[in-house]
């Protein structure tokens, strides 16, 4: 059962509290409580307060009211960063999930060498977020890179994919699609849960492969698809390393790879404008929360739960 299902079912059924457990629970959870206070929820609250200040780490924070939040509305570089990030998320996640589902369907139903294929397709997911792969991408999609060498072999004139503002973001989208292995494994686990008898019964009734897929596989797999969608969207919003390395930390060329996270990094840790960076962080949280909420709302219309 996934974390999302747990959240969905959280409101059902209460727990019988055992008084004697309270003391023990306090000690077992002491590190976690401290982490919540100092490292996770505490900073979320603190960043809300910092959002109302001008603060550069050296001078004490100075209250400036809503200035940082108003700046969000008028900052045109930020608006560009939002456009870049939304494009990245909305294009790469559906492509990535389509590849994941496609390959998972090919691998399902007792194909020989399943374990081997699964590993080979999964490996890029482990490497995808590393600096090493970003370095490789810089070369592969560079003017003298591997892609242009191969294209040249077929007589096609290439271009500097990363140095051209029109294509730079696409190379990062390709990189994200490349890491379809981990949602693929989740799909495979989900496909295995679907009882074989459903397909047998449908085949006896004369259902074609296509309608079996539409009427059995898709509905029963929809909770998994939903889970992958929520997870990968949240994940894609947080992409940073690849854009940072490929653009040399600038988000260039012409801000075409300026992810939201990269802009936040520049404001906070290059310019040390901690107040504005905090406001940006909160805004990011709101955006991700809104996307997740829309996902959950839309799920009512297409996700099928048989419980």
């Amino acid at each position, binding site marked *: 059962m996934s*974390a999302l299902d747990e959240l969905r079912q959280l409101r059902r059924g209460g727990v019988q509290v055992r008084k004697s457990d309270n003391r023990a629970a306090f000690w*077992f*959870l002491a590190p976690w409580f401290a982490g919540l206070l100092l490292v996770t929820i505490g900073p979320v609250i603190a960043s809300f307060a910092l959002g109302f200040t001008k603060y550069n780490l050296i001078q004490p924070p100075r209250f400036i009211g809503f200035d940082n939040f108003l700046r969000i509305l008028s900052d045109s570089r930020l608006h560009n960063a939002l456009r870049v990030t939304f494009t990245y998320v909305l294009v790469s996640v559906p492509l990535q999930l389509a590849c994941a589902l496609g390959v998972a369907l090919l691998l399902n139903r007792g194909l020989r060498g399943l374990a081997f294929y699964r590993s080979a397709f999964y490996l890029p997911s482990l490497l995808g977020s590393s600096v090493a792969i970003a370095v490789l991408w810089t070369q592969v999609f560079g003017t003298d890179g591997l892609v242009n060498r191969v294209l040249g072999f077929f007589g096609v004139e290439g271009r500097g994919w990363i140095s051209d503002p029109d294509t730079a973001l696409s190379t990062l989208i390709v990189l994200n699609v490349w890491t379809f292995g981990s949602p693929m494994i989740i799909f495979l686990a989900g496909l295995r849960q679907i009882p074989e008898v459903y397909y047998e019964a449908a085949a006896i009734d004369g259902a074609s492969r296509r309608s079996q897929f539409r009427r059995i596989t898709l509905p029963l797999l929809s909770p998994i698809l939903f889970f992958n969608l929520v997870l990968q969207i949240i994940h894609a919003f947080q992409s940073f390393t690849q854009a940072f390395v490929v653009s040399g930390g600038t988000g260039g060329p012409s801000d075409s790879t300026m992810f939201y996270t990269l802009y936040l990094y520049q404001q906070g840790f290059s310019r040390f404008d901690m107040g504005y960076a905090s406001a940006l962080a909160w805004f990011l949280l709101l955006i991700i929360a809104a996307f997740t909420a829309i996902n959950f709302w839309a799920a009512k219309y297409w996700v099928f739960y048989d419980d």
Partner: protein
Amino acid sequence: MTTRRLATPVKHLGLVLIGFVMLYPVLWMIASSLRPGDEIFRSPGLIIDSLHAENYTEGWYALSPSFGTYLLNSAVLVLGCIVGNLVSCSMAAYAFARLNFSGKRWWFGIMLGTIMLPIHVIIVPQYVLFSNIGWVNTFLPLIVPKILATDAFFVFLMVQFIRGLPKELDEAARIDGCGHPRIFAQIILPLMKPALATTTIFTFIWTWNDFFTQLIYLTDPDMYTVPVALRSFVDSTVATSWGSQFAMSVVSIIPIFLAFLIGQRYLVKGIATTGGK
């Protein structure tokens, strides 16, 4: 029937092709790192005429201190994070899975929520806190959060695992007079080795790859970890020395390969049950 029999070889061919295209850039990077510098641009193939280690020696000593220091730094950091996660997450998981304390559902909900909380949202005030207590350029801001069970993903993974263990074991132990610390340490922990292995392997890979927080907290070259050093190396060299950049990139992903080979089983299980990256 014939289409069916034909379908399988075609499927295999397709899968092999997809896999080859996907992994080709990585294989090519490895091959290229073993060629003399100027040949990298000329050959898009994988065949190497003769082995050249120059790129490796050149890259290894290109920055001061050498790459050995960065590997050691990363190793120390990874070890600290693994120990932190194993201890703190297993304790929290025991409480959520086996203890019926007040407000449990509420806290559990918060814990699940923090799985989805991006680091970028908390990094600014966290940095303010850690820089004020002088922790910048130490591993503490990277390890201490792990000791405080903030990788909620692993807490959840372990909760799932502990729920699957038979409750009769704890109850028998309790009747024999065992308290919770002993039930946890002597019964539950030894039984949850697979979940601990999954946690170890994921923590290893994620910490080894993590760039964002290490970039922010480690600015002194002596404290650089592998990803931070690699990036600074790439920034400092002219575009023509792909050879040594590739060589150090290969060095930086070898540990990931090894972890993948050793821990595959746990990785696949971990993802399939809880949905990691």
